[in-house]
């Protein structure tokens, strides 16, 4: 930001009478900065080669005819070439050898898709979707839609929702039981698969 301001001051014409007024004119400075930013953005796109053919020829024309564009283009191109001129850093000579010694201890792990069963993921997702849908259906079923009060037409009668009915002991127990059964099923599937894998590798 400091750099930007410096550039703005540098570019103020020499025949300005009231410097403080100009310096305090934040709008003028902001406009100039936005304009400058726009020029730089368009020029970077041009230098990076990500502009369309129409924009490319428009920018080329501006660089040819406009001194401000020409100066900014030269600056950006220099920065671009400087960054391009850097070389990659190199690790020590033993680097590849070290990596190969390390990977000799390991084997390529099986692809994630081969041991994550999509049916299980869909099963778990389905369970939660059914739970949410069930709750919503029950909730909507409890709303008193026949209320004549027009001001109240879209507000559901929340007091009538008897959630306590579902959060009592027996429902909680059923919920926990379902989860336990699902957990045991998953554990069984996992152990079964492991056993199969051991048998095939023998």
């Amino acid at each position, binding site marked *: 930001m400091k750099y930007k301001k410096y550039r703005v001051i540098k570019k103020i014409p020499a025949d300005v009478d009231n410097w403080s007024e100009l310096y305090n004119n934040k709008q003028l400075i902001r406009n100039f900065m936005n304009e400058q930013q726009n020029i730089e953005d368009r020029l970077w796109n041009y230098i990076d080669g990500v502009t369309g053919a129409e924009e490319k020829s428009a920018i080329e024309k501006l660089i040819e005819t406009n001194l401000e564009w020409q100066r900014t283009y030269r600056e950006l191109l*220099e920065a671009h070439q400087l960054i391009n001129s850097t070389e990659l850093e190199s690790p020590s000579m033993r680097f590849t050898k070290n990596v190969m010694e390390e990977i000799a201890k390991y084997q390529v792990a099986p692809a994630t898709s081969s041991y994550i069963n999509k049916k299980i993921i869909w099963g778990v997702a389905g369970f939660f979707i059914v739970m949410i849908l069930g709750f919503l259906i029950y909730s909507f079923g409890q709303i008193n839609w026949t209320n004549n009060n027009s001001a109240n037409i879209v507000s559901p009668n929340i007091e009538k929702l008897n959630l306590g009915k579902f959060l009592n002991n027996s429902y909680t127990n059923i919920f926990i039981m379902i989860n336990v059964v699902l957990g045991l099923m998953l554990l069984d599937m996992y152990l079964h698969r492991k056993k199969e894998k051991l048998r095939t590798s023998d």
Partner: protein
Amino acid sequence: MHAELTDKDIISRVLKGEQQLFAALVERYRNYVFTLVLRFTEIREDAEELSQDIFVKAYRALADFRGDSKFSTWLYTIVRTSCITFLRKKKLDTTSIDNEKTFIQLENRESGFKANRVEAKSRQAMVNEAIALLSPDDAQIITLFYKAEQSLEEIGNIIGMEPNTVKVKLHRARLRLREKMEKYFSHEVQEIQGD
């Protein structure tokens, strides 16, 4: 030795059991990975160790490379996640350092760069030092774009952002780099402009 083999050829042969062929991939990408990691760690020893870990991780997860993208793009995704984990750990380790000490360290670093102004620097060293002064994110985006030959879309895949956001970030990173060069290496920049 294996210059004629494509990354995908090497990977399929490694997956078939030719483990030693993985060395060809390490040779091909070691400098890219090391440079990217160095942008985060700043210390060469840390960068070397972390780069080795990244290649080991890549080897172990090789079966997960589906070939939808370039191998380099996939590898740089591992680089980025590993570097972020490294920085998180480092941050946890250094939370006990009081602000005054950190301030002194920063001051020393700044004065060191000012003192360096009088030395004649090669262009490359100057730009590398200026890049090292950027935030790891800025430094990595610049390195990925200029050195690792990744397109805006590919960088977007690596860092999990839309290509347009990457473009804006790249513009800002370059602007900040120019600011650093103006601030710390104005003498050298003038010399280069005078060439």
